[in-house]
């Protein structure tokens, strides 16, 4: 294991960059200086970081859809619809899964087949294959900042291309994505790949260009207990900070329990600042993002709207700065641009309807917050201990040891001993805590909560219960 939470030297970075830019011919299009100049000419309202910072100061919740299709022209149409009809505050560019796995040959075939079929055969925009110039035409065509949603453990060339093109945000991080999006990559390697990206973003910053980095706290999206989500967010924030990143958002997927979701988002912010203080990182901007339900959606569109609207309400009641929206097509497939815009409209309306009100912190929420805080800190502290104070080392060792774990992950380096299940009130708890380093109080609280459910339902909570909980929302009513 070689990874350390230390800023890469210029030399090291330069050497790596050469390799990265030669992974596919379009890498040659990347010219850092030209890109920096281009960014400097972009108006403020096309800069992700500035828009997020403004919203956070104003206490506003911004709506941020997902979306990407195979061909540039269609992708522009999509983003314009999201902007003009949906009222998106921020725009996405989701890449396809071939690109995410550096299968650029297949992506090329996807482009060709899409042209032939007259419809997108790819689940995102293959930005690398299209290259800097083509991607920049997307930036030119719209009037909002754009973020790359690359859901990949291989972000390097993708980030080079999209940042050079004028995108000003990049979603992803070195623990979450290797854990949730691939089978065989080590966490070590994943962290290194994201160190590269963060180092690149920091290089832009050194040159006066602010790029927003976003952490994808949803992981596998499948009943992630907030303690785990927050712990990973903190680690990834520290890793980004380690490369010099200073504009960051951390996120969590909603579990659709009003109280726990709001509690978790509040603790998320708090705990991030706690560790920033601890590591004496002073100039880091942090904002909070909440992802609408990331798990199996109801196929019925009316019910799906409920899930989406509830997601907007949770975001607003928590005071989150960003909400990432879903659509009523979620259960079936990549949404049409109209469906995507509808998800946005419903969410924006929901935020309007909450009228700036926040959920009150009563005793129940305080207890919940305290328990989430403990869980998160215990996981992070254990990782720091295992890494002798280095969070990069610590994250890798913690994952090996299972003191850090991600439920339902495809990655074979993730232990997967943790099994989440809901309690009687709907909050996400642990059927099995695996090797998570929880103290007695946390463990007891969890046990109590499970017992309450068992008492209420008059049956034991077992693996079938956990499976059932995964299907709850898509099968309800």
């Amino acid at each position, binding site marked *: 294991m070689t990874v350390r939470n230390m800023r890469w030297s210029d030399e090291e970075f330069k050497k790596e960059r050469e390799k990265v830019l030669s992974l596919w011919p379009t890498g040659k299009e990347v010219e850092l200086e030209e890109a920096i100049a281009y960014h400097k000419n972009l108006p403020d309202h096309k800069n992700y970081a500035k828009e997020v910072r403004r919203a956070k100061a104003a206490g506003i919740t911004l709506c941020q859809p997902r979306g990407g299709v195979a061909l540039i022209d269609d992708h522009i149409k999509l983003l314009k619809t999201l902007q003009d009809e949906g009222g998106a505050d921020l725009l996405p560019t989701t890449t*396809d*899964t*071939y690109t*995410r*796995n550096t*299968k650029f040959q*297949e992506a090329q*075939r*996807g482009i060709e*087949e899409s042209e032939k079929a007259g*419809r*997108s*055969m*790819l*689940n995102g925009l293959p930005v690398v294959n299209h290259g800097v110039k083509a991607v920049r035409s997307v930036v030119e065509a719209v009037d909002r900042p754009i973020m790359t949603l690359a859901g990949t453990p291989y972000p390097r060339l993708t980030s080079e291309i999209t940042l050079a093109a004028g995108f000003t945000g990049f979603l992803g991080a070195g623990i979450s994505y290797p854990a*949730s*999006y*691939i*089978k*065989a990559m080590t966490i070590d390697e994943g962290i290194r790949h994201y160190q590269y990206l963060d180092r690149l973003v920091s290089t832009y910053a050194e040159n006066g260009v602010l790029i927003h980095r976003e952490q994808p706290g949803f992981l*596998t999206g*499948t009943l992630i207990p907030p303690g785990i989500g927050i712990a990973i967010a903190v680690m990834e924030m520290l890793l980004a900070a380690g490369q010099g990143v200073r504009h960051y958002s951390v996120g969590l997927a909603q579990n659709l329990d009003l109280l726990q979701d709001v509690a978790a988002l509040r603790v998320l912010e708090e705990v991030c600042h706690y560790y920033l203080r601890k590591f004496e990182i002073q100039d880091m901007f942090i904002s909070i993002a909440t992802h609408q339900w990331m798990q*199996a959606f109801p*196929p019925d569109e009316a019910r799906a709207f409920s899930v989406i609207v509830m997601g907007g309400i949770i975001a607003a009641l928590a005071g989150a700065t960003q909400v990432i929206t879903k659509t009523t*097509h979620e*259960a*079936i*497939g*990549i*949404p*049409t641009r109209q*469906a995507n815009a509808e998800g946005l409209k419903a969410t924006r309306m929901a935020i309007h309807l909450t009228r700036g009100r926040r959920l009150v912190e009563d005793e129940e929420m305080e207890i919940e917050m305290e328990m989430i805080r403990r869980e998160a800190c215990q996981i992070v502290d254990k990782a720091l201990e295992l890494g002798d104070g280095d969070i990069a080392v610590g994250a890798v060792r913690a994952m090996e040891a299972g003191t850090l774990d991600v439920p*339902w*992950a*495809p990655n074979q380096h993730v232990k997967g001993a943790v099994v989440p299940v809901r309690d009687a009130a709907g909050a996400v708890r642990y059927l099995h805590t695996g090797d998570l380093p929880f103290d007695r109080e946390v463990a007891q609280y969890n046990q109590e909560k499970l017992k309450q459910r068992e008492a209420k339902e008059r049956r034991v909570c077992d693996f079938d219960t956990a*499976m059932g909980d*995964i299907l709850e929302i*898509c099968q309800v009513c």
Partner: protein
Amino acid sequence: MKQKRVVMGVIGVDAHVVGNKLMENALRQSGFKVTNIGNFVIQQDFIKAAIETNAEAILVGTLCGHGELDCQGFREACIEAGRGDIHMVVGGNLVVGKQDFRGVEERFMDMGFNRVYPPGVSPSRVIEDLKTDLGVSQE
């Protein structure tokens, strides 16, 4: 019943594991002998596993939308490997976007699949069909 052997997995660079695990669970409970080769597998992995375990069916999961690309030529590859007769089933979110399922089914049937399922199909329906197709007597 004599246990029927099947091979299952999720084709392509597709990270969705939940449906795969659920389906595996259901198949085992219904008495199938399952070789689950998991995610991130290619056509050749399926065929190899089928030959090794002498399986009667290959169950291909594909969720991320690239099924239409990833499954091209699958039947031909089976024929080449000498298992052209094998029963082939595909399920998940087969294509990109919300499309009329009849058209999707047809395209996958044309590729040589014997059964094609729409998004969110229940394991029990898949299993019942599988029993019929493999000639398992249902008591």
